[in-house]
């Protein structure tokens, strides 16, 4: 559905535009450097700078080192609680995953539109979250089959299932296992997209309310603007929670692969 002239199109913010190299192709696929790739690069650079600034290894940490260490400690504790002592070796992956999603979510919320830049939330695209989920799922499969061989399939039969129930339970467990990457990717993508669409819809209320006159300005525009500020605060919370949930569920799935159940 195309937006009418003069209206805010809530979907326009998710448009992927090529910035340089519109004609670059590999095997018939366009590989232009898009705004999505740009914001991922910005996220990676900021994340690198953030972690690099905290790697001084001082005995008495300064503020910066403390900030980085509290993040790594947070993920380390989560892995310890969910996987146990074997969880340590997944710390680099889970930490990168968590910080990449967190930084991506927060960068997409930055009000840099005020200075003319167009922030792009790459986590609001199923292609990005899907690839992240596929990486997590591949790690689960590789670790599971590497460690347990074909015994990994006993994941589909929980311990102590009565014999007549085994076919039905195995089928259900199998589908619930296969659906994991989809639910993992879908949750992050939809949560980010929903929040950004909501903010844009509210912003269109504000603009239309102001345009129609003083009455609608007072009755519509100002309450909508107040709601927008509140929703922005909620979005910052959601950005953190979704990054945490993605990392938490990945570590739970890895725990299944490490220990079966």
């Amino acid at each position, binding site marked *: 559905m195309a937006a009418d002239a003069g209206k805010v199109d809530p979907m326009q913010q998710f448009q992927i535009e090529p910035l340089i190299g519109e004609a670059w192709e590999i095997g018939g696929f366009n590989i232009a450097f898009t705004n999505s790739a740009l914001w991922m690069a910005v996220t990676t650079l900021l994340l690198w700078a953030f972690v690099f600034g905290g790697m001084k290894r001082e005995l008495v940490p300064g503020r910066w080192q403390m900030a980085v260490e509290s993040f790594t400690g947070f993920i380390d504790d989560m892995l310890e609680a*969910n996987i146990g002592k074997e969880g340590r070796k997944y710390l680099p992956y889970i930490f990168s995953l968590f910080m990449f999603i967190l930084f991506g979510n927060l960068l997409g919320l930055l009000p840099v539109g005020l200075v003319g830049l167009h922030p792009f939330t790459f986590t609001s695209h199923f292609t990005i979250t899907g690839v992240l989920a596929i990486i997590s799922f591949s790690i689960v499969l590789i670790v599971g089959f590497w460690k347990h061989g074909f015994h990994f399939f006993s994941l589909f039969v929980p311990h102590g299932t009565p014999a007549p129930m085994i076919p039905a339970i195995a089928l259900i467990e199998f589908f619930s296992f296969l659906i994991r990457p989809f639910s993992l990717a879908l949750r992050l993508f939809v949560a980010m997209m*929903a929040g950004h669409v909501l903010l844009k819809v509210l912003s269109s209320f504000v603009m239309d309310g102001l345009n129609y006159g003083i009455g609608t300005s007072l009755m519509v525009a100002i309450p909508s603007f107040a709601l927008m500020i509140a929703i922005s605060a909620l979005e910052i919370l959601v950005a953190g929670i979704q990054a945490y949930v993605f990392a938490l569920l990945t570590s739970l799935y890895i725990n299944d692969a490490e220990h079966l159940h």
Partner: protein
Amino acid sequence: MDPEAAKLVGAGLAAIGAGMAAIGVGNVFGSFLESALRNPGAADGQQGRLFIGFAAAELLGLLAFVVAMILIFVA
């Protein structure tokens, strides 16, 4: 009914799912808070489970949102 109108009605009906998910998420956090106040010592150890419950309840509401978006913008 006009197909265009039916799409919008369907999208509106899908919003019921978002409201139901709100009940679910509220239930998860409400029950957690209730039991955390009874036994504050055990609360910190259950935070992982809290967020798993939250994620499961929230996902179903987000699916309702996806249905609405598909009806409005894709179908």
